[in-house]
């Protein structure tokens, strides 16, 4: 019953993401032509850099999908509860700082243990970064949109301090950390840059899907997001606790994304580690309509855009930031077509 309904929903919803992406790409092509670039060259490079070869898929697109999956999975949780966590970027960095610090100190540990400690540290750091916004929202009704957003900038400054201060590499020349211990690095698929983070992310998405569709908890979460007052008045949902769990859970997953980026991709902390994953993941989660299974596809899509953007810059001389425009257009198409509504900003700041 439940399953057939979700399949029907998915089928009905399948058209919109395709339309949204096509609109985004058409606008990109028109913009490129208008700016004097060749749209064919640009889109060709976009394709080559993302899906054009096994190397592009395995070493450019898929590794970029991993952080989007973790962050996006967390955002489905927060958004379902009606909490706008726009601070995933900062939580990502909090997790990355923790993972780097731990990763530098676990040399000589058995690898599984080191990886578990790194992951746990990143999860906790991400959640910790969201404790204040969560308290402010749950206890005092302060908009989490703004508080989480503000902490992004604090996190960026903190990373800048860390890589020029306590975590700076031992020669004290470059603004980055030393590489983490080998034990703290995730195994790679041989011949690629694809790491173990991908299967873990897929498992997290499936677990969340089960949580949403198979448990009373997931159903109540949805009820809470749809109408907090009704859910509270009927007394069946302890709204504050659900909200807190959803916000902290989403932040923890964003932190884990940062930890896994350190442990699986960069092995070191530096500024601009994230090309805006925290914001791209919002688009991915909304395009997937907060469905963690749909997120598998939408994360891949946005990862391909990010990967292809690099190729556009290299091969066609097109500024890679144009993908932000494409993302914004996709987001606008989705939010307009779907009229996806959270509880909005109103009613929470009483």
């Amino acid at each position: 019953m439940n399953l057939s309904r979700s399949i029907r929903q998915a089928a009905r919803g399948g058209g919109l993401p395709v339309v949204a992406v096509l609109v985004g790409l058409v606008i990109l092509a028109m913009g490129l032509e208008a700016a004097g670039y060749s749209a064919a060259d640009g889109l060709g490079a976009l394709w080559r850099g993302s899906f054009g070869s096994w190397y592009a898929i395995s070493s450019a697109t898929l590794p970029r999908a991993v952080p989007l999956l973790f962050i996006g999975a967390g955002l489905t949780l927060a958004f379902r509860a009606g909490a706008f966590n726009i601070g995933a970027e900062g939580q990502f960095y909090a997790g990355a700082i923790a993972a780097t610090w731990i990763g530098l100190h676990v040399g000589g540990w058995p690898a599984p243990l080191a990886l578990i400690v790194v992951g746990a540290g990143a999860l906790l750091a991400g959640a910790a970064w969201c404790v204040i916004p969560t308290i402010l929202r749950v206890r005092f009704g302060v908009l989490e949109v703004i508080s989480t957003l503000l902490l992004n900038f604090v996190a960026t400054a903190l990373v800048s301090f860390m890589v020029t201060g306590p975590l700076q590499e031992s020669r004290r020349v470059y603004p980055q950390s030393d590489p983490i211990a080998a034990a703290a690095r995730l195994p790679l698929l041989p011949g690629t840059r694809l790491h173990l983070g991908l299967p873990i992310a897929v498992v997290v998405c499936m677990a969340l899907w089960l949580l949403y569709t198979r448990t009373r908890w997931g159903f109540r979460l949805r009820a809470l997001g749809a109408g907090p007052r009704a859910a509270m008045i009927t007394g069946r949902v302890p709204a504050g606790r659900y909200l807190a769990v959803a916000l902290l859970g989403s932040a923890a997953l964003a932190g884990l994304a940062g930890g896994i980026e350190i442990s699986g991709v960069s092995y070191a902390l530096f500024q601009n580690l994230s090309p805006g994953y925290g914001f791209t993941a919002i688009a991915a989660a909304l395009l997937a309509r907060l469905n963690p299974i749909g997120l598998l596809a939408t994360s891949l899509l946005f990862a391909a855009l990010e990967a292809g953007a690099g190729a556009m810059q290299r091969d066609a001389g097109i500024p890679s930031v144009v993908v932000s425009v494409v993302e914004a257009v996709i987001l606008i198409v989705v939010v307009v077509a779907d009229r996806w509504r959270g509880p909005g900003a109103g009613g929470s700041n009483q």
Partner: protein
Amino acid sequence: MAGSGGRGVEPVTDFISLSSGFAEASVRVATPLALAALGEALAERSGVINLGIEGSMLSGALAAALAGGAWGPEWGLLTGALAGMALAAVFAAVAIGARANQIIAGTAVSLLGAGLTGAVYRRIFGSAGAALSIPTLPPLSIPGLDRIPVVGQALFGQALPTYLVYLSAAVIWYILARTRWGLGLSAAGESPEAARAHGIPVRRVRTIAVVSGGALAGLGGATLVLAQVGTFAEQMTAGRGFIAIAIVVLGGWRPWRVALAALLFGAAAALQFLFQALGTAVPYQFFLMMPYLLALGALAGRVGRVRAPAALGVDL
């Protein structure tokens, strides 16, 4: 401040020049924040929370840099305001016209602003960017008033945009408190259904509020270029639009208080210059964090003391 005396050379004049320098820097840094916050306050009083204000500021900054470099800084201000309006119009079309979620629409418009300005800037100046040098607005002193000790230069010896803050705070206050149209705008923000029942065109009023707010945000971004740094860099607004949203809360959605709240943020940022002048060992990154932490504290501290427009974020 005791530290300045310790250096031994005429501690009293040292203190005065330091504090008038601090006051001057506070107002200068506060000016773009105040313009953006006044614009956001106008939109929020009509019931619309516009997160796209960051995008408006950023596009205002780039437009001001391009037009200011080509035709002079006054034209830069005007063009910046128009660019801010253009992004706000996109937001209004999505959030008011198509009735989409305001938070998501605002996030998308901020993203759009970052992408568009980055792409245009790199298209014109190459992917490494160029060290643009844009003529800045000269200070305009108001004779007499600028002689007031400590705060004279700060309040009455600034460039044009600071006077635009005074002007827009006064105009917004007057419109909201003294005109029928302003009452209609507040009604749209408090109770859109009732407002519509009384014949107020709620969505048109909200659109006008959002687009004029975008003009002020664009002006704020332009000010950053034309009265502060004299150049453009990608992402140079660095979240000032989001800080402006916190400033609106701190100022309780009332124009003069919003302008004062912006000054507090200007002072927090100016502390950085002061501490640098005094020579402190605290890493500069902690000063960078300060405005954001202050904004967070402001949000928390105002809980229960101010009341948001009742229908803020609520579609008609």
